[in-house]
């Protein structure tokens, strides 16, 4: 694709006081079929309130590990992919880190993308769902809602800081306003795999009218090298990926509640 003039990138917006909104952006990628439907420009924002034991991107935990970008600058990165995304089918996903750590920046990027006719997705744990205002959600076509666990003790053990309550509240709010949801559940043997824990997540998902699918993501250790590079210890270094039998059992738990599972 030849580089097109950036005419479609509107001038800086911001807070109405003329100061452009900036965000801490860790990196971006163009992925296919893994961060929402189709080919997607995925912006990974820096900073996350949780410290999930299985996290495969500890390099996005801190805001300081991102580069400060204005909304215009990020939109300029998206621009060379707009046409491809339109032809191939897909959209833009704001991920992280936790994008709702930076709700103003996230909201503006989502709105700008939405105004361009791009399908938009927000990849979040929902822990900071309260920070997503209605304008942000109006500009969001799909929420990838990462429900880390149901059981409060397990949730805390997984995230080392959080509680599931805000996620549940956020999920219900999305369902009430009609926002489509893909629930994500990371399956870690010995950590999140207890039947009651999975059953709780599954019951919750089945109770939300806008859940279109559940993605059961088997734990892997591909992010382990990042811990080493950061001088951190990977807490699950000795945990094996789930067996196919376990994955089938958990998928079954979601499926038997009438949910579409991938």
């Amino acid at each position: 694709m030849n580089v097109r003039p950036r005419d479609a990138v509107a001038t800086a917006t911001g807070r109405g006081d003329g100061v452009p909104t900036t965000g801490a952006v860790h990196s971006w990628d163009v992925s296919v079929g893994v961060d929402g439907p189709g080919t997607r420009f995925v912006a990974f924002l820096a900073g996350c309130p949780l410290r999930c034991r299985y996290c495969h991107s500890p390099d996005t935990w801190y805001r300081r590990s991102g580069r400060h970008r204005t909304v215009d600058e990020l939109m300029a990165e998206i621009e060379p992919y707009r046409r491809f995304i339109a032809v191939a089918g897909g959209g833009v996903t704001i991920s992280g880190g936790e994008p709702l750590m930076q709700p103003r920046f996230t909201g503006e990027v989502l709105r700008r993308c939405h105004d361009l006719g791009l399908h938009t997705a927000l990849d979040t744990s929902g822990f900071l769902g309260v920070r997503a205002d209605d304008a942000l959600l109006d500009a969001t076509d799909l929420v990838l809602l990462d429900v880390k666990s149901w059981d409060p003790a397990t949730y805390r053990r997984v995230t080392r800081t959080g509680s599931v309550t805000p996620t549940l509240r956020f999920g219900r709010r999305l369902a009430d306003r009609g926002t489509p949801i893909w629930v994500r559940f990371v399956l870690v043997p010995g950590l999140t795999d207890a039947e009651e824990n999975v059953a709780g997540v599954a019951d919750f998902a089945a109770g939300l009218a806008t859940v279109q699918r559940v993605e059961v993501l088997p734990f892997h250790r591909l992010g382990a090298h990042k811990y080493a590079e950061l001088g951190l210890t990977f807490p699950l270094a000795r945990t094996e990926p789930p067996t196919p039998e376990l994955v089938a059992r958990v998928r079954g738990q979601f499926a038997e509640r009438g949910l579409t599972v991938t």
Partner: protein
Amino acid sequence: MTGTAPLHPWRGFTGDAWRDTIDVAAFVRDNHEPYTGDASFLTGPTCRTLEVWGTLRAMFVQERQRGVYDIDAATPSTITAHAPGYIDRERELIVGLQTDAPLRRAIMPAGGLRMVETALKAYGYPADPQVHRIFTTYRRTHNDAVFDAYPSDVLAARRSHVITGLPDAYGRGRIIGDYRRVALYGVDRLVAERKALKAALDDRPSTDEVIRDREELAEQIRALGELAQMAAGYGYDISGPATTGREAIQWLYFAYLAATKEQNGAAMSLGRTAGFVDVYLRRDLAEGRLTEIDAQELVDDFVIKLRIVRFLRTPEYDQLFSGDPTWVTEALGGMGADGRPLVTRTSFRYLQTLYNLGPAPEPNLTVLWSPRLPVGFKRFCAQVSLDTSAIQYENDDLIRPAYDDDTAIACCVSAMRVGRDMQFFGARANLAKALLYAINGGRDEISGEQIAPATAPVGGETLDYAEVLAAYERTLDWLAETYVDALNVIHHQHDRYAYERLEMALHDHPVRRFMATGIAGLSVAVDSLAAIRYGRVKVLRDDTGLAIDYVVEGEPPTYGNNDERADAIAVWLTETFAAKLRRQRTYRDAELTMSVLTITSNVVYGKHTGNTPDGRRAGEPFAPGANPMNGRDTHGLVAAALSVAKLPYDAARDGISLTSTVTPDGLGHTRDERIDNLAGVLDGYTDAGGFHLNVNVLDRATLVDAMAHPERYPQLTVRVSGYAVNFVRLTREQQEDVVSRTFHGSL
């Protein structure tokens, strides 16, 4: 003959343009019926198919162990040199083998005796003394003739590997006869046409060109006669047109087979046959002559034959090209000039052979892709890629306007109008090494030898972009001149000593000729220039002043990330070298074209190139074709593809190759999603102007396991650079290169 009732061969066919003149493209246009449905009509293999294929599979095991199954070392191959051969005479539907037995390889000394004798020795066969005497005493070979005429600077450039892979010791290949002509018209009509063409030259004064044309036409007429004689040996009279689908495939195959008996061409491509065959199969189905099972069985049997085309080559040659490739390329799909898709049920049937017979590298099934293709076909292609990794894609929306809608692919990415264009294949020049020559004043960075004309080396502790660029331009001027000079010698001598009589008999006269050059090391050269321009590159020199290593500082951009800074250099280099090549005078006034394609020689090119200013270590493989360097494309498959798509097809009309490997998870969670997403990526890449895409859908773990247990993966097929190979037949080094390439997956 199989038929008994007299059938008019052209019954039910429409249109007139093709009746009076030899014009298969017009016939296909007039009789084509698009199929816009899905793959649900396809059928599996019959027991007969599985038994015939099973006989061969058992032989493949021995062939893999020994390198060859068998060789006839005493009979120089011609169209009629060998007695008829069969796999299983009672059960074959389509007959004909290159020699008198399956997988028994022939010798073709006219291209070069040394190649033949080296290969025989390597596989433990004694050279035949009579053949040796004939080709050293009475008959000169192409190989001898080229080396008699090479100037010294070509020899030096060849020796230092700044120009490599030249077809000066073997058949040049990449010529596609319009084999369909034999089926549509029969041999007699084609002979009559050639005689008329020759007679038309009688009034012309006997200049060099006219004498050569007359002699070539006489040779073509003789070759057509031999083709009919060869077919008669199998009990078929092909003097007239084919009357049924089975005959159409048989006639067409005989013509292709005759070409493979006459030429050990580097690439012996088939053309664009599926749409043509479909017209006959459709008529047979309508007449109740065939069922769908029968139609598929014919296609399966034909493809079995295409899978066992073999040439005798040296182990070194096979090492260069990975395995034992023949490039029996068939172009499928595409859009018609009238806006109708050229997709037929037979396009599906050809692809279905990858299920019925299992995956295989040959024939090299090539889908001409357009976002406008019917959804059912697009999804089936994507599905086949997911399941087999055996097919490649080329941009029909670039090819059709540049050529026409009856264009096929020779080898990997070389487009040519079937029966109207031919090319003089020209391997490639090493642009990364040329950059090192520029820095070193024309001296080779490994040997220290003066190869290019002596100029002042680029001085200083840190490389200056403007200075390097000026020196590079001078080196590229020399390289373009030397390179095309070598090709002119090669093709002049090939025409004289190893002329493709039959293939050229199945072309229009006069034919349009391309001089097809190529480049290797694009991404290395581009990243080096980007490092010099946007970073700081310090030079380390030996005590003779030769620059032997570089230290890169800063974070220069790299090609393959859709980053305009690096990509603009890639466009500049492609256009600049193409322009320099076009300024050269070519043999027979051939139109100069250029490819960005390495086949798998990227490994060998890398081996012969020293440290480069991008930080690449000496000996490390180049990226294949137009690919970004391994591991430097950090933004995923789409960003890499968009970088490659910026390379202008107008500057590289012989094709631009991109090989991508993606894990199944990197395309989506479910099979349906993966199919849709891959089809979407192909639409996006084609729309962006990307020319070629090899798609491998593989897990690294599978490849690693196949390296350890090759016996478990006899048919594991991997696309490398414009074609596919049996992974287990690659050398260890090439396997490691494939495994080390970027896998675009998800974390």
